């Protein structure tokens, strides 16, 4: 009973962290995008427009909740939550500090890789429920892209597990040494690229290509349901960046304790900024380019990385 209550508490905490992260993330993305495009971005509300989202969130909350007449109503209504839940769940296994994660399990890394990939189901459900051709195309693109990029992403994490000798994230953090950084550079880059594809963000935003599919798999969503999709996307950005910062970049290293948490947050922020920077730099790739890049570049690169780690580890 108490563990259930604790779970609910952690769930609420996770949702709040992701929601807050999304609010800050949207503001930060607008600033980054603005400056990259030689604009200011939001600047009217709060210092440097930082309270803009406090105005936007009530606006979204008060918007009409439109369900298209041809839609599959129950699926249409539940799909956004189905997309959000795996992202929130992934939050649970992230090692925020050496030896501490909200839900410290021996298969944490596997959990982190497996659970968020359930999102593809939610996206397919959403795409199907709208009875909209654009949404359907978006959903199919999302399915092929997300399943394909599971492979390099998982392969990129495998060297870490090999080095740490454990699937428990806290143990990975504990085993981390600074020289892992150059050693796992290829894996880190591949992980980052594959994560961007998993998040459906530019340049891999084919499922929601606005100029082609008018937002793709959530074309017919509006108001708060649309916002939940966006929150799931930002949640994915945050969790993927947090995980990378914790495992590839050594969590709180070189500090420990409270300063370590600050270092983790800074590292995560830098990674989030890089993800945004990528989106506003590179144009959208084509479907065939996307898949060829996955199988011809990323998967071989991770296999090379795996081989390097496989050779170096026995030598150590």
């Amino acid at each position, binding site marked *: 009973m108490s563990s259930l209550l604790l779970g609910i508490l952690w769930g609420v905490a996770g949702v709040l962290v992701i929601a807050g992260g999304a609010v800050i993330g949207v503001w930060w993305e607008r600033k980054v995008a603005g*400056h990259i495009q*030689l604009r*200011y971005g939001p*600047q*009217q509300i709060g210092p440097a427009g930082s309270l803009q989202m406090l105005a936007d969130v009530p606006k979204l909350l008060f918007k009409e909740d439109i369900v298209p007449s041809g839609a599959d109503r129950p699926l249409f209504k539940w799909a956004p939550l189905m997309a959000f839940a795996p992202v929130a769940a992934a939050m649970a296994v992230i090692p925020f500090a050496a030896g501490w994660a909200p839900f410290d399990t021996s298969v944490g890394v596997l959990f982190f890789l497996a659970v968020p990939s359930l999102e593809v189901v939610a996206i397919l459900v959403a795409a199907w429920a709208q009875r909209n051709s654009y949404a359907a195309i978006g959903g199919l693109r999302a399915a092929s892209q997300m399943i394909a990029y599971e492979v390099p992403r998982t392969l990129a994490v495998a060297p870490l597990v090999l080095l740490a000798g454990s699937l428990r994230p806290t143990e990975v953090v504990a085993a981390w040494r600074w020289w892992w950084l150059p050693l796992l550079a290829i894996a880190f880059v591949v992980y980052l690229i594959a994560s961007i594809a998993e998040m459906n963000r530019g340049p891999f935003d084919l499922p929601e290509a606005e100029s082609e599919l008018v937002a793709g798999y959530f074309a017919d969503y509006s108001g708060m349901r649309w916002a939940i999709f966006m929150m799931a996307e930002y949640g994915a950005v945050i969790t993927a960046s947090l995980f990378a910062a914790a495992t590839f970049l050594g969590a709180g290293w070189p500090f420990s304790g409270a300063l370590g948490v600050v270092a983790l947050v800074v590292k995560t922020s830098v990674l989030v900024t890089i993800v945004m920077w990528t989106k506003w*730099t590179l144009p959208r790739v084509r479907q065939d380019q996307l898949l060829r890049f996955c199988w011809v570049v990323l998967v071989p690169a991770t296999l090379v990385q795996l081989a390097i780690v496989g050779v170096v580890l026995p030598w150590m």
Partner: protein
Amino acid sequence: MDVKRDRPVVPASVSDGPTGDGLVAGARSIAKGFAYTARAGVSKPLTVRYPKEKLTVSPRWRGPLALRGVLGRDEIPLLRAPSYAYNETIDGLYRADRLPPCVGSCPANVDARGQAYLIADDRVVEAYELVRDRNILPGVLGRICHHPCESACKRNFFDEPIAIRPLHRFAFEEYRKVRHERISPFPRTQGKSVCIVGSGPSGLAAAYDLLKLGYRVVMYERERKPGGALNTGVPAYRLPREVLYEEIDDIVGLGLELNTGVEVGKDVTLPSLMREHDAVLLAVGLQQSRILPIPGTDAEGVVGALEFLWSANFKHEAGVRGKRVLVIGGGNVAVDVARCALRVGASEVRLACLESESEMPCHPWEIAEALDEGVIAMCSLGPEEVLTKHDTVVGMRMRSCLSVFDEMGRFAPKFGDETTDVPTDVVVFAIGQAPKIDTIVAGTELLVSGRGQLVVDGTLFTTSVPGVFACGEIVTGPGSAIGSIATGHEAAVSIHRYLQGLPLDGDRVARPVPVYQKHAPADTRGIESNRRRAVMPMADPEERAKDFRQVELGLTRQEATAEAMRCLRCESEVCVGCTFCARTCPDYAIKVERVDEAGARCLTRYDLDLTKCCFCGLCAEQCPTKALHHTGQYELSFWHRDLMVFDKGEMLRPPTGTRATGRDGISPPGCPVPRREDG
């Protein structure tokens, strides 16, 4: 099964990556992109920082706006979307001013539009009767009216106004051929009788209306012949008397009991008439000329305009043969006097007026015709003194006039110092007329003001005695014939209400807006259309100034029908095919095709290309007929577009036909179609 197994082939022009050649080049290209965006991200934005705007709310703000109790109105319902009621309101606004300008500016609201339609449709006699309903003497007014209708005519904006007045005359000339068949007395349905004193235009108008309502109407006239000022005052060269007498005969034929040569106050008394009849209408007009109180006016050779015109009209002799005549005054009567003086043999006619040339109160065409005939106009001169020798006029001393009106536009002449002596033998004062009613009102309780004027209510035309009414120039002062006719119509309404025991004002609508039939397009087959106004042929100025022949010679039938066809039929809501909309359109969105044939004034095609239309509304703005008008659906949605296009198609539909076709069901309206067989 034959399955096609072609792989989709990427065209050669489509590269694999940004550079298309290799991983390293691609990576370098991507790195370059990142470097570029990073540089942009840290450099200063190029856009302008918006000024901070504080959200301020006025201290007087009291929640959402509402209009309540303004000008006695209740709360106005908020319109969320163009509802049916809203569309109706907009529609109503456009229909509210549905009066054609000619009808609206005519004091008697004569249906000039209907006249033009009926003449073009070859129903001239009907046109005459339509006009006579409001303008009881179309033949007379067709010669002498100052035609405010033509000044207001919408064709003024395009070329020249419709010749409405000459068309009245033409209609009369056609009508007089069949007038004996068309006249039958109105049935007398009311048991009451009305007495009208004076047979001028206003009295005749009231008589016509009362006869139509079924009353017995008895009219008394002092002169031997009826017509009032039309008979005694208007020069015969403008109005042949037989026209006047014929039209009055028609009214007599409708049931009017006309007694001429009977002077009320001498032969019969007003109190006895009041006893004899249920109501009395005084339409006596202005009988005496005003003469200025300046030295020398009692000398021989000084006459008033009315007396001069009377003797010129009836005796063709005013005692001025071979003499020099000076007319004082700048109005229409003064010009009439001057032109008459020429015709009765004056050796030299001068016209002196206070006003400058541009301010002269007479109509410009009148003075122009007078100058053609040899009248000498002397402007900006005020009469100072009549110079006499042995009690006979030898000249007139005139003082220069600097200005006539003050800044407020009131009559306040300012005179200069220099004077001029004009040698002359006869001085005619044409400076206005005054009523002379002391003998008429003797023995009654009618109130007369200190200046000898009858006290009359200007809107109800009642006097101080119940049952006695007044109309015409005695109420309005010197004015136009058509203005007098308008007061006659109003007075008839008052008398009718009085006799029926209804309150005189109450629910009465003063000068009600007439609603005339809009008529389908006229059958104008075979009429050669003309864009220019028909020119009224005039007698030669040298010749006409010698006698009282008519100056205006009248339009031919061909000219008249072509002229009637020029009418744009304003506010009729039936397209006349003028194509002004297509010519106005700034985007060339309207495409029209017309039949290129004599008399074929119709559209065979009307296209509105909504992809070009900018919705400026200029086409509807200038459409004279209002066949094209804004609706409440003034939005760019497809449903409304359909509605608009349908509206335009609908406008080709005459009220009598079906859809967008004409009488024969095939051609659009107004096109040459077989002439209708009327029984």
